[in-house]
Structure formats: structure tokens, C-alpha cells
């Protein structure tokens, strides 16, 4: 299917906008490079930026199904495939830039991927994305039928590996990796809850609210627990900065705010529905 057309073959402006937006981060990096805006180690900076966008597109792709159901927005699913394919395109740019940083010494690239565990993990995630991208044409989706859905569930495993890869490459700064990990918990949690408690394809607002709170709480506990284990810092003190904001906005409040925001939007969408269709509240 042409990315900017809907299922009936008509031009879809929202799809076209998303399609073009997916190019923006790569074009931005490509334009910044010759202008010297990527700093003194431009290749490293480009590798980091493109890698981060890979992760963002992958997570957005995974968020489409929950958001479609919670926000009662069926057409959202139209952009899911292009988000996933964009994640694959970006991870290939990410790897190519890494090879460029190693002066295209492919033996060195291969040995580094084999020797450094975080690169090995990242490479396995890349292979997974390649398999998903290769099975994303209309013909193959049709041919695989149900098995397509089963196969594409490995996207959750790939996102988990991508999280670990992101954490492991970071030297000290773990703010954004922690947020990503918290959102990963939310995504996994939603799939489990929807599988167990959804009625007519919808999870009640109470569950979505509870999920947002739980994801925020687990992020806070995970962070405090990590610093307690590794640096022997009093976990209560670390927990307290989540609500005193003494160390800026910590990851847990960010995850909590995103979870609560989604629940709130879901509640508004449910309330504004015709009364007869509100049954899904359960």
C-alpha cells in the first residue's frame, strides 16, 4: 500500500503528514552535520540522535493499539505500519553511522558486535526489526493471516532489548532510559490487562488509570532500588525527590503524568460517546 493512501486508495492527509514527519529527524541530523551543529564528535552525536529516534518510533508503533482502543480512535491504526517500518529504517541508519565511525572496517564492526554485550543485544533487536519490516508488505500480511499477528508480537521483545541496549550504553545519565523503561512497563501492562479484562475491545477507565499509577510507581521503585543496590544510597531519600522535585523532574513523575494523561483522555472520549455505546465501561 502507498503510505499516504488509506484502505480505499484515497489520499489521506493525516497519513501523509505522519509519513513526511518520519523523515524529519533524519533530515535534521543530515542538515546539522555540515553546519557543525552536531558538536566536536558529530558522528557520535548523529549515532545517538538516530538511535533515540529508532526507540521513539518503535515505542510509538507499540502504543498505537492501546491508544486506538483507549481513545476510541480506530483510524489511528493507519499509521502503525509506517511507524514500525520507520523504526527499521532508522536502526539501519544507526548501524551504518556506527560502521562509518569505525571507518567502514566491517571486520572491526562485526567483532565489536560479537564482543560487546550491549552491541550484541542491539544487533539482535535490529535483526528482529528486519524480520518485521520484511513481513510488512500487503501481500505478506495477507498471506500470513493470523500468523502475522503472532509474529509481530516479537516487537515487544525487540523493544525490551532496545531498552537494555539504551541503558547499557549510558555512562551516568539514566533519566531518559528510565522513562523509556517505565513506558515499556505501561505497554506490557496494557497488553496483559486487555487480554484479561477488556470488554468488547475496551478496557475500563479504572484499569487504565490504575495502570498509569502502577507504571509510575514501579519506575520510582525501580530507580530507588537500583541506586540502593549499586550505590547503597538510602532508597527513601531517592524516592522523596520524586515529589519534592529537588533534583528536577525525575523519571517516575514523567511516566505517571503520561499514564494519567492517557487515562484522562480515554475518560473524556468515553463520556462524549453516545449513551447507548457506553456499555464498555463495565
Amino acid at each position, binding site marked *: 500500500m502507498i503510505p499516504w493512501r488509506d484502505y480505499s486508495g484515497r489520499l489521506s492527509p493525516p497519513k501523509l503528514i505522519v509519513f513526511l514527519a518520519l523523515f524529519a529527524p533524519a533530515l535534521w541530523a543530515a542538515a546539522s552535520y555540515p*553546519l*557543525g*551543529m552536531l*558538536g*566536536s*564528535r*558529530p*558522528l*557520535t552525536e548523529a549515532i545517538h540522535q538516530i538511535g533515540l529516534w529508532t526507540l521513539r518510533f518503535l515505542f510509538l508503533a507499540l502504543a498505537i493499539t492501546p491508544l486506538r482502543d483507549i481513545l476510541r480512535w480506530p483510524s489511528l491504526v493507519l499509521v502503525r505500519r509506517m511507524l514500525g517500518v520507520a523504526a527499521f529504517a532508522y536502526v539501519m541508519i544507526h548501524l551504518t553511522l556506527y560502521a562509518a*565511525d*569505525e*571507518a567502514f572496517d566491517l571486520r*572491526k564492526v562485526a567483532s*565489536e558486535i560479537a*564482543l*560487546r*554485550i*550491549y552491541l550484541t543485544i542491539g544487533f539482535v533487536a535490529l535483526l528482529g526489526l528486519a524480520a518485521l519490516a520484511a513481513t510488512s508488505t500487503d501481500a505478506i500480511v495477507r498471506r500470513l493471516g493470523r500468523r502475522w499477528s503472532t509474529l509481530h508480537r516479537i516487537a515487544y521483545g525487540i523493544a525490551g532489548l532496545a531498552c537494555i541496549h539504551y541503558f*547499557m*550504553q549510558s*555512562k*551516568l*545519565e539514566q533519566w531518559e532510559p528510565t522513562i523509556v523503561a517505565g513506558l515499556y512497563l505501561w505497554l506490557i501492562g496494557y497488553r496483559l490487562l486487555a487480554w484479561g479484562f477488556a470488554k468488547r475491545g475496551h478496557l475500563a477507565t479504572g484499569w487504565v488509570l490504575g495502570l498509569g499509577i502502577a507504571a509510575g510507581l514501579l519506575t520510582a521503585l525501580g530507580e530507588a532500588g537500583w*541506586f540502593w543496590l549499586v*550505590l547503597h*544510597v538510602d532508597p527513601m*531519600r*531517592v524516592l522523596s525527590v520524586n515529589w519534592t522535585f*529537588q*533534583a*528536577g523532574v525525575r523519571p517516575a513523575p514523567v511516566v505517571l503524568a503520561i499514564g494519567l494523561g492517557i487515562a484522562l483522555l480515554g475518560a473524556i472520549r468515553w463520556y462524549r460517546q453516545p449513551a447507548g455505546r457506553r456499555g464498555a465501561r463495565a
Partner: protein
Amino acid sequence: MFIKRKRGWEIPESEATPEAVFHDRRKLVQAMGLGVIAASATPGFIAAAGAATSAPDPTADLYPAKRNETFTLDRPLTAEKDATTYNNFYEFGTDKDIYQEAQALPIRPWQVKFDGMVEKEMTVDIDDLIRKMPLEERLYRHRCVEAWSMAVPWTGFPMKALVEFAKPKASAKYVRMETFSDAKFAPGFKQFWYPWPYVEGLTMAEATNDLAFIGTGIYGHPMPRQNGAPLRLVTPWKYGFKSIKSIVKITFTDQRPVSYWEKLQAKEYGFWANVNPEVPHPRWSQASERVLGTGERKPTLIWNGYGDFVAGLYDGLKSERLFV
């Protein structure tokens, strides 16, 4: 008699950037019309550099110091813009571009405390200290543990002179150095779970080696804050994190100091941290380095090319993790 041996990594003086060109490079850049582009691309740098250099430095009259020609480079000097805008200084943030945040560091008045196993503990004003020391300029390579490098003209004095000034007792085995740890102007301290203050250490033999240097300036003027003003360590045969910045305390001790990074990740950042391309960091190879601002990747040299000066220090220490 002084016999000068040419070392493998030395280049003829003719290949180094001539000093006149080096000191006039801003004019050169402006003449080429590139100043406009540089200014529009990084307005923050120009502003920050202005703030750091416009405040009158009480020791400004000492710069530029005479170059010590013993130390030559095998590569061109790194552009000042790269060396002063790409910095690790975790007290001010975890990004490399902390040069603007670092301008909040008050570098006068500044005192340095000498304590531990010394004849007499003392606290010295930075300007008195700098004026007692024999300032000179040295061109050194600098190799970061993150596999990037630069070549920098430091101004400062041999660390040996500082040790003699402190008069340590014969029982002292190590020098422990400490960075400021004031939460008011440096946002990094808000993340109190990290093992502040920044601490580093050397053995007495390392500290009194000819190569160990205390930096007070760079590129012929007093040290910018992001590079560790007003007083920092420079140990070019070790990974960059050993070269502690903005020192406020120097302690002589018989206990091996445990550094900031060693407390965080002892497996990855040890006490010795000598450069060796054969010994990878647990997460990446150290075989080569990306030279800041050049797009070039160069093979890394053991002891960062300074083996003639320092390899002998480690003869009896083969059982130690010398390269982590």
C-alpha cells in the same frame, strides 16, 4: 650532558602549528569570513567564552608562558573551540556541552587546602600558589576513556613542584585530590546519590614523575571554567577522567584513594587507568580514538605514547590492573 633522543611519536617542529598562526587564528578565521558562520552556529560558545575571559584574571599577566620544548606532538593541536566546548564535567551536567553551565563556577576567591601526611597543614590562596610555581606551556595529547582524544597546549607547572611545596612526610604513599562540592551553583550535586565529591589519586612516584602536570591555563590564557579552572591535574598517559578538575583539596596519605568513578563502577574505571589499546573497556574497544574536530580515527598508543617517561614507574606492579 643532555642527550635528546627522538621518540617514535615525535614530529619535527616544522610540522607543528607555528605559534604566530596559532595565536592569531581568530583573526585568520575572521579574515576568511568564517567567523560569521561560527558565531551563528554556536552563539552560546561565543557568549560563554566571552564571560570566562572578560572577567579580569589576577594571574593574566603570566600568560602566555614559555613553551617547554621537551614535549612535542605527533598531530596538530585541537581547535580551541573543540577543546573548550566538548567537556566532561559531571558537576555541571552529564552532557558534553556544559560550557555554559560551568560559567556559574566562582573561581575567585579560591583556596587550596593541603593536609594529611604533611609537615604542616595549610590553606593557600590560588593566586599566591600560582605565583610561587614555575609556569610553562606543554603540548600534550589527552585520551578520554570514551575513545576520543585531543592535543592541547596546557599552561601550568610540574606536579613535582606542587608536591615539594606541600612538604609531605616520608610515610605518604599517595596524593588524593578533591574537586569543589558546593551544591549552589552546580546542578550535578542535586543527584545526591552519586558519590560526590569528585576524587582522584596518584602514587607519589606518579605524582613526582616529569610528565605529571598541574594545569592553570590552556591555549596561552588562564583556564576556562569548563576545562577545570583554576587548578587541575593533567596526566596524559592515563585516561582523561584521572585528570581531576577544579581542585580544592590535596591530601597526602598512605591509603590508596578510591576515586569517584571507581566508586561508581570499579570494573570499568580503576585506580591506575593507564592508556592501553590492547585492553578494552568492558563495553568498547580502546584500540583507536576519534580525534576531536578532525573526523579522523587514529590508533591509540600504549601509555598514550608517553612510555619513555612513565613505563618504568610500573615495573614492579605487573599484578595490578594497570590499564583499567
